[in-house]
């Protein structure tokens, strides 16, 4: 059996991530000026819960930090401290450090006190919560050991029936001898109202040693005066035990202050002077007493009400407690109880991926079957065709559902960027605010993970290079505070993520000069603004006058671009001088399948992603204009679009003499430009399973991946945008390293 504590620990760290997320959310809401008390409650609870769980696992560093932060949040919650912008920024930093501590604890790592202490110091200075002396910490981080292995570490309820039950023989009961205590216990009426029950206390006491219970009924009023809720009874208990007085007191912990309690060790008790008063007893009529709130079973036979001290009253035989079957370790399932909201199941990612793969195979299989049916010449209304149609629909549904399992909101990623903005703006002395939108957009888990690095770099770039210093901003008539906006949305079957800043925009003169200096473009190159902007993506390009310690880490935008491309995505840049820059990343919804158009070029079958195709056209004489021997444009509704011959671009055959009557695919690109791809024919439109090529061939320019078609044939999947940019680069004599290979 797997270790249940290890499982809970793992689930604790997952919960921590959720709590950190709501902590960030709450702080963001506070930062936006929201003063709803529930917001600060959420923030407080998040820290509180992290502390609680951390304590259970003995994560002392985490407990310590969380405790201090919690105290600060408590000051806010109770209205003793009103946080301003600076305070909230500090809270954000605290949340970041708390996140570090959580992850360090998870990975058995440590966070240096050089990181935590200054933050705590600032917190203390700002909020004025002083560090409590460690022993005064309300919270005692006792390490919890839940070892339910072979020997039960848990002292479960003992089998009381096996304990020696005190004999009701008065001669032997209350005469104290050896070690032990004599306890006088008289509950106040309030004790019963608190839900406490003397009987249970006595049972607990019996675990300490031999117990004799004597009930005093002397205070019982006559029946007509009895108040059932009051109790009226008191007890003298003698317990023979080696345990300390403290252990005995602990039994009465919950009723402390709700009763008269005298605990006296045996040795000091002269047997003749028990510490309780004796009063004359009104005699009870021999009726069964009315309902007693406590211990009805312990009511003595009224005929034996004592007159003497030696408590002859009634030695009570305490009923054995039902001992729960301790070997039943199966978690008890509450049957018939309402199901918990948001029930979730944790599944190994590997299993999901296996399912994704199987569904991929299913899609291929389905395609093969469809093809066979078509080739067999069965009419479309035959049962087999309609059945297959339903099968197709089902396959699609299954596929979507499986993809949904892997999808998760991009929010966690966006929140991490909040920290990047805070840290990078602080290190370059800029004031930056991050706005996010579309955080609930769901993206494949792998995509989210692999986006973290490129996105981090882009955010750092935006803060470091995109935004101006506060002084420059003021001089340009902008607010001191710069803005970086991060958005995500679904757009025509793809995820589009944009990083924009309201900075100075790209200085194209400088970029151009730099590119010439580095030999990336010829000195006389004719470049559009868009072309210049795209120079940023060339390997080794850096415009920063001096490498700042922030972005200049040897990672350029070219690395960002290739990371995005590796995800089947594309990146584009738009910039307006003085207004800012926007990077736009477009990603496929899933990494496993895509809707493709099957085309034929020079007897080769290729797949073009459907979402890249704006329209398909058959060219007429009027549509095609030749610009030169190998350069053509297509006229579409008044505009001109460059024409690329797919067969020639891929090296399958020389360019065609004429494209009149040919078929072209109109391709839309991120930067808004269009291109026409000439193909020999369109065969079909269908879903294909992506099979990566990179593992075997490395990145191939213009080619995104491959797939297996219904007839078992292997076909390449094009990356039309890359292909077009490679091809147009070549027509403009780009440096050879960017030319299309082959």
């Amino acid at each position: 059996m797997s270790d249940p504590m290890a499982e809970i620990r793992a689930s604790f760290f997952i919960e921590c991530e959720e709590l950190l997320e709501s902590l960030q959310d709450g702080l963001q809401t506070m930062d936006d000026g929201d003063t709803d008390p529930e917001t600060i409650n959420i923030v407080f609870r998040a820290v509180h819960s992290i502390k609680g769980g951390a304590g259970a696992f003995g994560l002392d560093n985490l407990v310590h930090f969380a405790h201090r932060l919690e105290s600060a949040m408590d000051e806010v919650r109770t209205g003793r401290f009103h946080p301003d912008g600076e305070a909230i920024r500090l809270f954000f930093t605290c949340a970041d450090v708390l996140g570090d501590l959580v992850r360090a604890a998870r990975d058995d790592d440590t966070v240096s006190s050089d990181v935590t202490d200054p933050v705590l110091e600032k917190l203390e200075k700002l909020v004025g919560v002083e560090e409590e002396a460690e022993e005064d910490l309300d919270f005692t981080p006792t390490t919890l050991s839940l070892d339910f292995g072979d020997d039960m570490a848990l002292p479960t309820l003992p089998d009381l029936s096996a304990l020696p039950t005190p004999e009701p023989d008065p001669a032997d009961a209350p005469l104290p001898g050896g070690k032990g205590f004599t306890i006088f216990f008289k509950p106040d009426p309030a004790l019963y109202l608190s839900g406490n029950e003397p009987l249970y206390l006595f049972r607990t006491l019996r675990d300490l040693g031999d117990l004799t219970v004597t009930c005093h009924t002397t205070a019982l009023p006559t029946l007509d005066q009895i108040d059932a809720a009051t109790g009226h009874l008191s007890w003298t208990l003698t317990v023979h035990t080696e345990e300390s007085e403290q252990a005995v007191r602990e039994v009465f912990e919950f009723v402390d202050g709700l009763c008269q309690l005298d605990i006296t060790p045996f040795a000091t008790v002269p047997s003749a002077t028990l510490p309780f008063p004796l009063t004359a007893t009104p005699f009870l009529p021999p009726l069964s007493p009315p309902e007693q709130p406590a211990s009805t079973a312990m009511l003595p036979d009224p005929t034996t009400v004592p007159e003497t001290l030696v408590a002859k009253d009634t030695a009570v035989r305490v009923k054995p407690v039902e001992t729960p079957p301790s070997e039943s370790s199966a978690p008890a399932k509450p049957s018939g109880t309402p199901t918990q909201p948001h029930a979730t199941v944790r599944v190994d990612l590997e299993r999901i991926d296996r399912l994704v793969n199987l569904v991929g195979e299913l899609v291929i299989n389905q395609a093969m079957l469809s093809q066979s049916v078509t080739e067999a010449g069965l009419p479309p209304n035959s049962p087999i065709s309609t059945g297959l149609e339903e099968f197709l629909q089902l396959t699609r549904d299954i596929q979507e559902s499986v993809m949904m399992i892997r999808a998760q909101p991009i929010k966690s990623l966006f929140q991490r960027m909040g920290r990047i903005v805070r840290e990078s703006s602080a290190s370059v002395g800029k004031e930056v605010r991050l706005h996010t939108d579309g955080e609930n957009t769901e993206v494949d888990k792998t995509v989210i993970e692999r986006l973290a690095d490129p996105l981090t770099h882009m955010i750092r770039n935006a803060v470091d290079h995109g935004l101006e210093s506060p002084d420059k901003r003021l001089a340009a008539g902008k607010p001191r505070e710069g803005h970086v906006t991060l958005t995500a949305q679904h757009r025509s079957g793809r995820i589009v993520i944009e990083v924009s800043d309201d900075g100075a925009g790209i200085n194209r003169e400088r970029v151009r000069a730099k590119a010439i200096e580095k030999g990336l473009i010829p000195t006389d190159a004719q470049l559009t603004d868009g072309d210049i902007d795209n120079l940023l993506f060339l390997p080794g390009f850096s415009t920063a006058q001096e490498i700042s310690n922030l972005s200049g880490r040897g990672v350029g935008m070219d690395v960002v671009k290739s990371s995005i491309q590796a995800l089947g995505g594309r990146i584009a840049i738009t910039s307006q001088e003085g207004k800012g820059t926007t990077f736009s990343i477009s990603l496929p919804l899933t990494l496993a399948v895509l809707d493709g158009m099957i085309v034929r070029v020079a007897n080769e079958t290729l797949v073009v992603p459907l979402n890249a195709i704006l329209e398909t056209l058959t060219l007429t004489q009027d549509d095609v204009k030749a610009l030169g021997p190998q350069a053509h444009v297509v006229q579409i509704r008044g505009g001109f679009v460059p024409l690329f011959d797919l067969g020639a671009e891929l090296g399958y055959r020389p360019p065609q003499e004429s494209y009149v009557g040919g078929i072209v695919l109109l391709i839309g690109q991120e930067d808004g430009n269009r291109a026409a791809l000439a193909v020999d024919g369109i065969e079909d439109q269908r879903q294909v399973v992506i099979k990566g090529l990179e593992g075997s061939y490395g990145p191939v320019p213009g080619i995104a991946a491959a797939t297996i078609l219904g007839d078992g044939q292997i076909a390449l999947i094009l990356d039309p945008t890359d292909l077009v940019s490679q091809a147009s680069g070549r027509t403009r004599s780009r440096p050879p390293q960017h030319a299309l290979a082959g």
Partner: protein
Amino acid sequence: MSLQVLAVDDSRTMRDMLNLALSSAGFTAHLAEDGVHALEMLEVTEPDVIITDINMPRMDGFRFIDAVRSNDKWSRIPILVLTTESADELKAKARAAGATGWIVKPFDPAKLVKALQMVAG
């Protein structure tokens, strides 16, 4: 019949741990996420004892205890408060709200069992 325990805590980790500790000791654990959820559970389960956290969304522990105590059906059910504070003030507050006893988090399973024993047999 094992002791039926309704444990209320908004932290999933804490619920997991309570569940483990309770079921390992042979008790039947019913788990609720907050006061509102716990009141719903009370309608369909008959716990012998309730363990509740204080800081919870929707309905906190104090309001939950108050709701339990003011309903005749449930007013006698012992209630243990789970708290990270052992401060006397908080205990007094818990008691004033009608709690029977308290368990200081992080709880020691043995102490949890003992506390349950002290209030519910």
